[in-house]
């Protein structure tokens, strides 16, 4: 996986363990990616409303569904409602196996949905693949 300019990912995740492990996985994979974190839904929405933080938008948003206060679905809805972030690739991370959660996510405009398995290896591989796909898709054609 080659990367030109610095890639940025926004990880919306309240669970520190998951955040740390994800961060480690990306680092270990050697991806030149800057990972920024929002700890919950409101922080994520604030992130996009704060011009200082979002002058350069992240290339991909990894969004956990099960968030305190403002749910992942609401965050997704607001991302899609905002003209600035309307086309931002959003990958949903969820522990839920509920069919409704997935269909709702796609209905709200999620680009991918990843179910968090217990086995982290499997999870990270999936995240890396999907993230890389969306990162590359956002790249200029020559990179691909």
């Amino acid at each position: 996986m080659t990367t030109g300019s610095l890639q940025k990912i926004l990880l919306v995740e309240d669970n520190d363990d998951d955040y740390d492990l994800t961060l480690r996985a990306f680092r270990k994979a050697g991806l030149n990616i800057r990972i920024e974190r929002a700890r919950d839904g409101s922080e994520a929405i604030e992130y996009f409303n704060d011009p200082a933080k979002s002058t350069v938008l992240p290339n991909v948003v990894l969004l956990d569904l099960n968030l305190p206060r403002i749910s992942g679905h609401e965050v997704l809805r607001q991302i899609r409602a905002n003209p600035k972030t309307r086309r931002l690739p959003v990958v949903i991370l969820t522990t839920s196996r509920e069919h409704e959660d997935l269909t709702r996510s796609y209905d709200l405009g999620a680009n991918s949905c990843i179910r968090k398995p217990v086995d982290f290896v499997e999870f990270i591989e999936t995240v890396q693949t999907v993230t890389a796909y969306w990162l590359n898709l956002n790249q200029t054609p020559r990179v691909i």
Partner: protein
Amino acid sequence: MPNGGILASADEILLVLMGSITVFNYLYYRDPVRRDTALIFGGLAVIVVVNWLVGLQFDWVNRLILIVLLTQPYLLLRVGLHLQPIAKRFILYVQGGLLLFAAGVLTINLLSPDALPFLIMMGVYFITAQAIPTILFLRGAQRAKGITRRRLHAIGLGAALFGLNVSMLVGFTIVQLTRNRSLSEFEQLWLSFLSTVSVLCFYVGFAPPRWLWRPFQMSELGRFLNEVGRNVIRQPVEDTITYMAEACLQAVGGTESAIATVSIDTLKVTIQRPNSPITLNIRAQDKNPIRIAWSIGEPAYVYAGQPTQDVPSLRAALGAQAVYIVPICEVNQTWIILLLGLRGGALFVHDDLFLLRLFAGQVATLIENKTLVEKLNGINDYLETRVTQRTLALRKSDEELHQRVNQLTAVNRELEAFSYSVSHDLRAPLRAINGFSQALSEDYGDQLPADAQDYLKRIRAASQRMGHQIDDMLMLSRVTRTEMTVQTVNLSQICQEIIEELTLLEPDRQVTVTIQPDLYAETDKNLVELLLQNLLGNAWKFTSRKDIAQIQVGTLGENPITVYYVRDNGAGFDPQYAEKLFTVFQRLHSAADFEGTGVGLATVQRIVHRHGGRIWAESQPNQGATFCFTLAPEGS
């Protein structure tokens, strides 16, 4: 007697007929009223017969005729006294006059002109004396009702006409004596006519023929029934009895009524008059007429001078000369006795008893009906109360049930939500355990001894197994929560697809799969797919040790509802644990032998139960297992 042609002979024949009837009546019934009636008409018949036999040529015949005629007012008065009492002076007047004039008739030469004042006095006496019973009868008729009234009217009219007749006869005789001429044809005809009509009136009154008597009685009975029947259901029984007593009193011309009951234990007779609070207890002897009527249920008549015991006290109780005893009977038992007191005595005992029997029978029937209606109403009320109670109880228990169902549903939903969130939330720490174990192993593995690395590996394996269990529990809870969409589903095709997937995962295995074609069921496609995945997955798993594994899917013979089966020739199980198979986390094999979380069959059972069906398993260790299930309730 003057000869008046056909009419005259008709009235004579009628008189003889009446005399015979009344005499025979008296000989048959032997009551004082019939005796006096027989005396009246017997006497008249005798003079007619004597007239026929010897004519008027002898002086004694004429005297006899006059004496018999003179007795008529007295005899009529005697009959009338049975009806109602009268001031003593009237009786004395009639009696005295009779004696006086009878003596005169016997001693005075009536054909001499000197006898004229006597004859005139006798005529005056006769008219006045005859007027007394006439008025008595007419007044009696005024008070009486129905048959008695009509008959009394007839008798009163007869008595009046008879009086008129005799008076005219006397008048004509006087004229005959003074003017010395015989009666004209017209006068004779007129006398015969009067006597014929009066005798006919007497006939109707004293001995009415059946054809006349019946309609009288029926109309009376009809009126009574109409009145009583209309009110019997609405009125209390006491009112009906009171009304009946009143009607009976009117029908027989009585004056006082009372109700008598007989104590079954002591046989003591208790008499209670409706309008008086006094209760009389009569010491009842064996022949007491009330007791007899009580036991045989037949109306009876008692009168003064009857040799029966207890009659005087009974008459005294009612203040009457004669008493009708009318038992009103229920099916087999006398209920009460109606006593009807007559101040004089009954004129027509036989008729009265017949009518009273009819009245009593009808009233008994009406009261029985009323009792039945009341009983029915009681039963209805009881039933209604019961129904209301039951309905209330049912509604209450229904409400309780409903509440309970609501509670249970709420609890169930809570439990589902709980198990869902537990399963859900447990995954995050597991992921951390797994992830950090891996990180530890990868980042610091070289600094760890082999044992420590092995432990880390085990931690990861255990956390992964737990993850699977949680996943399966989530699936189980989803089975209960998801809505069912029932449609016709091709089970054979689904089985085929599942087997293909299993084969893809383990392409090296030799498994002979036989699936009965065209197995259809009315079911939810997702759920039945999950069910078959589990059953076929188990069959696949438990035949893994067999060289030639066999799996069969089909339906069992003839059953009211289709029984599907999934059969394998795998490891099987001990049948004594067959019940435990379907419990969550119950496993009959060790994890080392066969993998599994112990949720699969619990899921299968839940799916079957959601269809209202049944699932059971048959097996022997190492003989394979057969899982049978239905997808519809029994009897559907």
